[in-house]
């Protein structure tokens, strides 16, 4: 072999190193797979979650970059109705503006032959190409391409079954229109936009389709070199407070703020997944530790010096680590595609999020590095034999292959550390709720630190309690546990971490679901039937009222129809949910969501006008208290309001502001409804009412009519979908942990066959041995699960608190008893079931195997 191809490292040829690893792999395929599996699972969970999280913002970033190109400044409308095109034309002529491109956008529903989807309709002008965005570059033909119809990205076209030069239905503003699909654009032409839920048309045509003649939503501006600040100042003077003026990447900041709470929760899980993976690898490596020590001794007896031995060990760990981490990255990609890839509905209506995955080199490298480091750490233990204080052929030949137990002092120290961690987490979280994520990770460490002392104590008590009991299973189990404390602790730790994470986050999630559902029901309880665009948009998309309201009002079963308005409003880093309720509504506020203020009084104040209920986060940011004044930037300028009540964020992370629709009409200069609230006469069921309203609107409008129950259900579904990745990753973690523990337990049981055989020589039969093995496994699992559940419940308390305080979510705390028990049972059950099989096989070992040790 050529010297360059077969370099010498510390005096050993690469070919030799590879050969050495080949032997090792063949000898310990199962253990190596187990160790590699641990790394892969850990890396997959971390990578999958990082990928999913970064894809939300990342896809929006890509979308922004590919459309906005070099645009630095934007004008953005304060409401869906946009601002006059004339303003954008004037702005475009300001000195210092090099290029400008107006856009109009609104959420619409597209219906094709094979499906429907929600998308953002974007009206563009040929100017857009000049911004230099990637997606627009190959659209050189420009206007001609989409003129007279719309262009759809491939993903949207595929979802609804649209084809070029065929018609699809476009529902916008309560009106359904047939539009021609002029072109389907693949990623070859428009890059990553091909995966985004958008529909593109020329500006004038879009204005017509959306019923927004002469309006635009956004103006993207490239200022001349060095003119940015001056242009911004001029723009402000030109448009006043009715239109947003600022950096063009504002959208991304808003998105980041909105997505943060869910990102934090999933990140926490990823961290736990990583720890679980590491522990699993560690315990798999422990299984082979005696053999690897013999291997080290053998190498040294053959004249390998310590650096060469380290090289061999390091090389093998590196190879395993890199391969396993690569597998983990692949698995993570798969995971994120299968589970986390769905665009969260609750974000998609408010932000331009694409469905594409954004894989960054940094993320991959981080995942690989973490996996490699974990493998090296986990496999380091036998290398301790290289210490000069140990004999060179030191080999684990101690009786029964027992491991060193932790000294009593270390156990006490760990218990103290665990307590200290719990206390300091409490202190940290009390002082600063925003550090809860850190607190969660520390709490996980505390959980793990708690395992050795709890394990020692429990096995002592277990042994004590069993002293007067007949039967051998518990006695054998106790002895085996004492003989392999490290391995048992590592495995209990895996179970503990998984249960900890699931109980903590699962509990908080359950609280949140309960809170959100309650808020939803209260919110819609003001009417029996709701008429909206039907989009998953928190009732923020408006439509033209036309005659629909009168038609509904004429129905004999209808007592009253009221006009609900709403939208989104950007203030600072928050995209607030504006809810304008008609003064005639029986319900102005969600009673359960009140944090400050009296319900009846606040409702009355809001009805009267000039008052608003604001979310806690928003109020806290501006240090607003009850009765204090504040101003909102609206299309008509600054709207002066006073605080009538402070609420939770009612489920929308950036928060909400509730006002009277009278105030809304005045300041937003719009009478367009986002919903009709229909109250029925006594005795008419909401379902019957909904049917009647549907009939009345048939053929006139494409609005969706829903009974209050249906409306609730749609909202609750969206909320669950938003939290889906959370529950999926929690289930994944649990199942992975259970299987991992089972695999590691099985391997350790299998390895113990010679000792089991010697017990047979003492007259034990296979059923006694099997029972002992199961008892031992159950004990390890029980300790892990209990410790995890206990601290998990505490984590649940903290997580709930951080949900309420930092993000102002409605998340009333309730002890997750049932959930915790289920989690516990799931992990222990799966693991025990799996262990039972190899346990049975191991218990059947022939007794003469005891002579073959």
């Amino acid at each position, binding site marked *: 072999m050529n010297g360059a191809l077969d370099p010498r490292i510390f005096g050993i040829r690469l070919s030799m190193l590879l050969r050495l690893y080949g032997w090792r792999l063949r000898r310990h395929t199962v253990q190596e797979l187990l160790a590699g599996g641990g790394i892969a699972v850990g890396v997959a969970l971390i990578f999958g979650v990082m990928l999913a999280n970064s894809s939300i913002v990342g896809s929006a970033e890509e979308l922004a970059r590919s459309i906005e190109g070099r645009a630095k400044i934007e004008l953005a409308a304060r409401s869906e109705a946009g601002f006059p095109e004339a303003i954008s034309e004037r702005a475009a002529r300001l000195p210092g503006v090099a290029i400008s491109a107006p856009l109009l956008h609104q959420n619409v529903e597209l219906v094709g032959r094979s499906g429907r989807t929600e998308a953002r309709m974007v009206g563009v002008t040929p100017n857009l190409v000049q911004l230099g965005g990637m997606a627009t570059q190959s659209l050189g033909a420009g206007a001609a391409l989409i003129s007279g119809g719309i262009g759809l990205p491939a993903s949207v076209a595929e979802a609804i079954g649209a084809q070029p030069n065929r018609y699809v239905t476009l529902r916008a503003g309560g009106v359904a229109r047939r539009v021609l699909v002029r072109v389907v654009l693949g990623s070859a032409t428009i890059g990553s936009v091909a995966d985004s839920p958008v529909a593109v048309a020329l500006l004038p045509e879009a204005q017509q389709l959306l019923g927004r003649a002469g309006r635009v939503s956004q103006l993207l501006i490239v200022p001349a070199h060095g003119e940015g600040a001056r242009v911004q100042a001029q723009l402000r003077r030109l448009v006043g407070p009715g239109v947003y003026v600022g950096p063009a990447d504002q959208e991304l900041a808003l998105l980041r703020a909105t997505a943060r709470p869910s990102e934090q929760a999933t990140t926490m899980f990823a961290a736990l997944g990583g720890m679980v993976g590491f522990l699993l690898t560690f315990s798999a490596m422990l299984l082979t530790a005696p053999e690897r020590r013999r291997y080290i001794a053998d190498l040294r007896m053959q004249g390998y010096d310590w650096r060469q031995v380290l090289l061999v060990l390091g090389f093998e760990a590196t190879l395993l680590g890199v391969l396993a981490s690569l597998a983990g990255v692949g698995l993570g990609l798969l995971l994120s595609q299968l589970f986390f890839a769905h665009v969260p509905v609750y974000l998609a209506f408010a932000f331009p999020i694409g469905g594409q995955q954004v894989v960054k080199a940094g993320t991959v490298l981080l995942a690989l590095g973490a996996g490699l480091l974990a493998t090296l750490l986990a496999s380091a233990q036998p290398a301790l034999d290289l210490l000069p204080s140990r004999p060179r052929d030191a080999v684990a030949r101690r*009786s*029964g292959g027992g491991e060193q137990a932790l000294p009593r002092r270390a156990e006490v120290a760990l218990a103290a550390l665990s307590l200290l961690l719990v206390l300091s987490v409490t202190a940290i979280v009390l002082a600063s709720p925003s550090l809860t994520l850190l607190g969660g990770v520390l709490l996980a460490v505390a959980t793990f630190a708690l395992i050795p002392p709890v394990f020692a104590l429990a096995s002592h008590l277990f042994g004590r309690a069993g002293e007067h009991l007949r039967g051998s299973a518990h*006695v*054998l189990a106790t002895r085996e546990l004492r*003989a392999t404390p490290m391995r048992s602790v590592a495995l209990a730790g895996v179970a503990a971490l998984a249960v900890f994470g699931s109980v903590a986050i699962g509990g908080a999630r359950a609280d949140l679901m309960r809170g959100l559902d309650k808020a939803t029901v209260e919110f819609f309880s003001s009417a029996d039937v709701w008429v909206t665009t039907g989009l998953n948009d928190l009732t923020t998309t408006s439509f033209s009222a036309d005659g629909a309201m009168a038609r509904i009002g004429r129905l004999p079963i209808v007592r009253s129809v009221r006009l609900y308005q709403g939208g989104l409003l950007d203030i600072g880093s928050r995209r607030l949910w504006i809810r304008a309720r008609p003064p005639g509504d029986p319900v102005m506020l969600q009673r359960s969501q009140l944090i400050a203020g009296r319900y009846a009084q606040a409702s009355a104040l809001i009805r009267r006008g000039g008052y608003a209920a604001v979310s806690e986060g928003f109020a806290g940011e501006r240090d607003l208290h009850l009765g204090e004044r504040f101003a909102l930037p609206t299309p008509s300028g600054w709207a002066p309001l006073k605080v009538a009540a402070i609420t939770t964020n009612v489920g929308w992370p950036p928060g909400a502001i509730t006002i009277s629709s009278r105030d809304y009409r005045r300041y937003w200069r719009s009478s367009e409804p986002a919903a009709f609230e229909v109250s029925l006469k006594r005795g008419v069921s909401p379902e019957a009412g909904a049917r009647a309203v549907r009939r009345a609107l048939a053929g006139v409008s494409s609005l969706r009519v829903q009974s209050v129950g249906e409306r609730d259900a749609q909202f609750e579904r969206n909320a669950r979908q938003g939290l889906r990745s959370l529950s999926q990753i929690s289930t994944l973690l649990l199942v992975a942990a259970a299987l991992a523990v089972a695999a590691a337990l099985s391997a350790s049981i299998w390895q113990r066959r010679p000792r089991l055989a010697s017990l047979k020589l003492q*007259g034990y039969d296979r059923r006694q041995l099997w029972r002992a093995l199961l008892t031992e496994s159950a004990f390890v699992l029980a300790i892990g699960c209990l410790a995890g559940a206990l601290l998990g419940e505490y984590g649940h308390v903290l997580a709930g608190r951080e949900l309420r305080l930092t993000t102002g979510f409605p998340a009333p705390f309730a002890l997750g008893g049932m959930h915790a028990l289920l989690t516990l049972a799931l992990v222990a059950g799966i693991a025990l079931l799996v262990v039972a099989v190899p346990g049975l096989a191991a218990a059947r070992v022939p007794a003469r195997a005891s002579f073959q040790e």
Partner: protein
Amino acid sequence: MSALQLDCVVKHYRGGGEVVRAVDGVSLLVPAGELVALYGPSGSGKTTLLLLSAGLMPPDEGAILFDGREVGRMSEREGARYRMRDVGFVFQSFHLMAGASALDNATIKLIGDGHTLVQARRLAQPWLERVGLAERARHLPSELSMGERQRVAIARALVNEPRLLLADEPTGSLDSRRSREILGVLQEICHERRIPGLLVTHDPEARKFADRVHTLRDGHLSEGLDAELMATLS
């Protein structure tokens, strides 16, 4: 009182690609109350003979009888019961449990036989004293010397008051003084309790304690020590 009787026992098995005639037509009577020492070079089939006597493998031909039962034809459960109740087995590699004290290690058979740990400890304590380990009862195997570990293993084998004693090189890792002590204990047990004892050994001391001596060479048994062994042992 019952004797252990081997009747024309044959056992062949494969190892390293060749058929090993481990035991090739061996007949042997170990009468109650006698300790029989079985000498033979390594690989001569001594251990196989012990495994056969413990009911751990059936003979290819012939019969092994103890207490009127044919040991080689027992079912798994019968075999387990036989080893639990009737046999005391002393290993060369002790197979002590690393997580249990010397005393607890000695209790292992009693626990499998339905005693509580507390009862088992009470029953095992005198046996530890008998092998001279009274004051080290609470030590873990890793804290004991090799000789002490072997004595724990012997106490463990005797604790259920077996009716048949089988020992595989019990003094293999002991010095001569300790060897004599252990051999003395084994001899006393056989005499006192009137039970048969079969001792497989290399130890030249052993024949001084045994009531009879046999040599096993290439699967064949002969009375006394054969010439070659005589040369190495004397």
